[in-house]
């Protein structure tokens, strides 16, 4: 085998592979619709790990007890979610038009339909951590729901939290 040819191939392979990976990631990031969902800090002691914040979704219409890594269907017109209900997913095709896929849970950080993380700069992550801990503020995550049911977080904004109904 021609050694120079082999050498060129070995040198080109990383560049081509990384470039292809970049292209497919970029293309995938443009698919799907943008939605908004209220979030809360994942763990009151530790939202911030490295340069990302972790959060849990507060799906409208779902009780806390129903949380868990399950397949969910979103109803409404993007970006506003009207209602969310859980569906049983047998893994064969799409359960509904806008669905969030369940994934195997990972200890230590929320994933799938329970929550996620948003990479950001160190300063911004620190500020978001304080805002997530502030009871007067409600975090709202803008995300892109890809056709394969995966959530891609886009940004985190904060608005004043609506008054809680009085506890009986």
């Amino acid at each position, binding site marked *: 085998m021609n050694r120079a040819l082999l050498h060129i191939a*070995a*040198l080109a392979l990383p560049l081509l592979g*990384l470039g292809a990976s970049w292209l497919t990631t970029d293309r995938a990031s443009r698919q799907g619709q943008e939605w908004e969902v209220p979030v809360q800090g994942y763990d009151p002691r530790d939202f911030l790990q490295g340069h990302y914040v972790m959060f849990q979704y507060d799906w409208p219409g779902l009780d806390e007890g129903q949380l868990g890594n399950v397949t969910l269907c979103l109803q409404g017109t993007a970006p506003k979610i009207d209602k969310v209900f859980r569906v049983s997913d047998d893994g064969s095709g799409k359960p509904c038009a806008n669905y969030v896929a369940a994934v195997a849970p990972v200890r230590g950080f929320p994933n799938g339909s329970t929550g996620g993380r948003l990479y950001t*700069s160190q300063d911004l992550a620190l500020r978001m951590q304080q805002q997530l801990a502030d009871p007067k503020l409600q975090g709202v995550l803008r995300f892109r729901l890809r056709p394969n049911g995966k959530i*891609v977080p*886009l940004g985190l904004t904060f608005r004043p939290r609506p008054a809680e109904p009085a506890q009986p």
Partner: protein
Amino acid sequence: MSERKLRVWQQAGLIDAETAQAIRVWEAENGRPLVLWAVIGIAVLSIALGLISVVAANWEDIPVLVRLGVHFAILAGAALALWRLGHDRERPWREEALLFVFGALGLTFFGHLGQAYQTTSPLWQPLGAWLVLFGPLFLLRGKGAPTALALIGVLVFAVWDYAVWSRSGPMEVLRFAVPTALPLAFAPIGAVLRYREGRTWFWQRLEELGFAYGLGGASLLAIIAGFERFSRGGDSAQMLQVILIWALAGLVAAALTWRARPDPSGQAAATVLAGAAGILLLTWPLSGNQVIAALLFMALWALVGWMALKGQWRGVFQLAVAVLALRLIVLSFELEDDLLTSGFGLIAAGLLILGIAWGARWVARTYAPPKAEDAP
């Protein structure tokens, strides 16, 4: 080479001035610049870590496309530099350092992509992709320990992360045991290629690292066997299958190494690998007992010591003696819990440690083979 030693020998009349000068010239031309290699290794590692930090710092102000574009352009520049450098026989460390930085840049590119597009994936996926993309180049142009370590390090991380991630589902035993046995393959691969290819230094490192992975794995399992009983409980059958696959991999690696290197050192390395496979097989029925597990561990390292004598590996022999002595000391504490509580117990323990340490030192010095170039 020590200049001081040369002068002492010359003064003692062992060598004359001409010989001393000839030795100096020969060493300057043929000696391996170990200090230089170490300094370059540290520098390159620090550059790689710096790259990771810079990517992780996530400059908010720079658009994603620009960031990734610059990263990719640096990668392309490194590839071009590697192409133009060619096989540099005069200064192999330049090529080695550049190759290492190129690999580090590639690995951080995956992290950079995930950060920029907010995607997450299990660690084994980018590591596996890196091995596919950069592995051929590293195998083709690696010159020394840094690239060999990078290859094996990434492989070990990738296979264990994969094994932990895929612990359930169909063929779980195969998906756990086969990938985790893969790093062992570098032992016979290095053994075969060190004679065929010019880069003995690189292949030898790869062979040693594959050998160390097998020996370390068997030692670790022998330690775990002291407090865990593999043959009992719900997953005992799976454990047996895993051990059988690992042992088979060890035996195959031993046989291939034996065939590739019929010299005493190669045969010794193959014997240790086969012995490690045998110890693995024994841990399944014999696990759950501290003394027996310690005996298995010490049997393995006694074999390592014996084979180090046959293979003339001085450093490995001394390591084996030290490991055996340490295991003995730990065992004495495991067996006699109240040694530490009573005064006599303390004195006895101290004397025991001194005795074992003295004995081990004596054995290591007296019987150690002379320094040889050829480690396993």
